[in-house]
């Protein structure tokens, strides 16, 4: 590209920016002049009588026509959080300036883009390339992803894999994504301490918008995930899809099922109600039944001999940090192997 071309691009862009800036400053100045905020002069010559202002405001002085305005009859500055967003006296909602900005701003951007495109076509004497093509070329010239990506996307999937029982694993994976999203949403409000946990779940259920819906989705997807994971495992087992060369895929799958159960165990304690507390007490006792290392497992899981504040902290850390990381790593390995080895051909 020639230097003159670049310069003209730069000039055109600068011109557009300048026009926008002038328009912006123009409107801001205008509305501030129109609002005519009563100013406290440092000399102290004209002090605003705020009681009079409040009386006038209560009488509806700000609703009368602009010609009758005086400086004293205007509403005090703290009445409108954004004076330059509204014409004085109009309803101070968010929507009026927002709709204005979107409408006129959109039209302005379209206009600016039109000028930019026309000048570009004029200067370069080349047909205009769509913005998507440009974006793809921009990324590909830096990261060189088009070829491997197209190779990945065009990889054939056998037709026998279109039966419904082949999508059980995919459903499990999608439910994990759902769990991730709803889990992050719940984590914004949840407090992992015995004193606050129960109250924070109550807060989610009663005060947060759609909080009980999100918790319901998290609750049922968790159960559904374990069911779907088991169903996928049964399908793979019956069809012998674990045989050479897919042994390690089976092992990572078993690991993923155990991780799902771990998610269930650690997540069940978090509401910190009687059911959660005693279910966790009983479930960790199952681990304690193992002969030699049982007590060690119990103490490690509960951080002591009883389910207490430290247990909640540990289960929370496991539930939102360690288990997700291990699960994502295992899932990545699982999927990469599925893609590389292909889907096992049934008899």
């Amino acid at each position, binding site marked *: 590209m020639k230097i003159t071309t670049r310069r003209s691009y730069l000039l055109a862009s600068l011109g557009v920016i300048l026009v926008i800036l002038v328009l912006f400053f123009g409107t801001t100045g205008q509305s501030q002049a129109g609002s005519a905020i009563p100013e406290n002069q440092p000399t102290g010559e004209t002090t605003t009588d705020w009681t009079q202002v409040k009386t006038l405001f209560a009488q509806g002085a700000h609703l009368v026509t602009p010609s009758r305005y005086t400086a004293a009859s205007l509403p005090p500055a703290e009445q409108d959080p954004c004076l330059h967003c509204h014409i004085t006296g109009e309803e101070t909602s968010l929507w009026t300036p927002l709709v204005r900005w979107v409408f006129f701003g959109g039209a302005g951007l379209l206009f600016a883009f039109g000028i930019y495109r026309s000048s570009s076509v004029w200067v370069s004497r080349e047909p205009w390339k769509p913005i998507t093509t440009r974006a793809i070329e921009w990324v590909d010239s830096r990261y060189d992803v088009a070829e491997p990506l197209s190779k990945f*996307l*065009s*990889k*054939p*999937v*056998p*037709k026998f*894999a*279109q039966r419904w029982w082949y*999508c059980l694993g995919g*459903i499990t994976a*999608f439910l994990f994504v*759902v769990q991730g999203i709803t889990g992050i949403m719940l984590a914004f409000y949840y407090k992992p301490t015995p004193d606050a946990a*129960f109250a924070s*779940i109550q807060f989610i*259920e009663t005060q947060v918008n*759609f909080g*009980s*819906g999100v*918790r*319901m*989705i998290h609750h*049922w997807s968790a*159960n559904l995930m374990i069911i779907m994971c088991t169903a996928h495992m*049964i399908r793979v*087992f*019956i069809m*012998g899809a674990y*045989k*050479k*060369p897919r042994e390690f895929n*089976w092992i990572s799958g*078993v*690991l993923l099922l155990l991780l799902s159960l771990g998610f*269930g*165990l650690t997540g*069940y304690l978090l509401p910190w*109600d*009687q*059911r*959660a*507390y*005693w*279910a*966790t*007490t*009983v*479930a960790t006792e*199952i681990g304690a*039944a*193992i*002969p030699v290392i*049982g007590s060690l497992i119990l103490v490690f899981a509960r951080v002591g001999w*009883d*389910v*207490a504040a430290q247990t909640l902290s540990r289960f929370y850390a496991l539930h939102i940090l360690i288990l997700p990381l291990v699960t994502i790593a295992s899932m990545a390995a699982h999927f990469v192997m599925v893609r*590389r080895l*292909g889907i096992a*051909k049934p*008899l």
Partner: protein
Amino acid sequence: MAEMDIHSNEESVPFYPDHVTIEAKVVLGLSALALVIGLIGLFAPVGLGEPADPMNTPAHVKPEWYFLGLYQLLKYISKTMGAVLPVAAVLVITFWPFIDRKPDTTSKAYRWRAIAVSVFMVILIAMTIWGEVS
């Protein structure tokens, strides 16, 4: 791998867009299901019981439903057996591909494995239900 070469154009579809479309449909359906569950949750929340009280053990203490079968097993067999059996089962399941190494030649293998898994699942579900009602 060798199996990838067998897939000729007649018996396979491209990953994109054919297979991705199917997966997208599944994802859409599941999202709709999640939405319905969420809407139900707005009117009938999961809810909470009494706040946890370590001093007060409720009458019927139960673990989560996926541990219920195991919990029920532990009630009736000796403690050592009840712990060793599940661990051994998990180990056998994990390393099953190295135990069952013969490639399938007839559909008889399918049938035997289907019977085995059915028996296992029936026992597991029965134990879970037993644990739930007891």
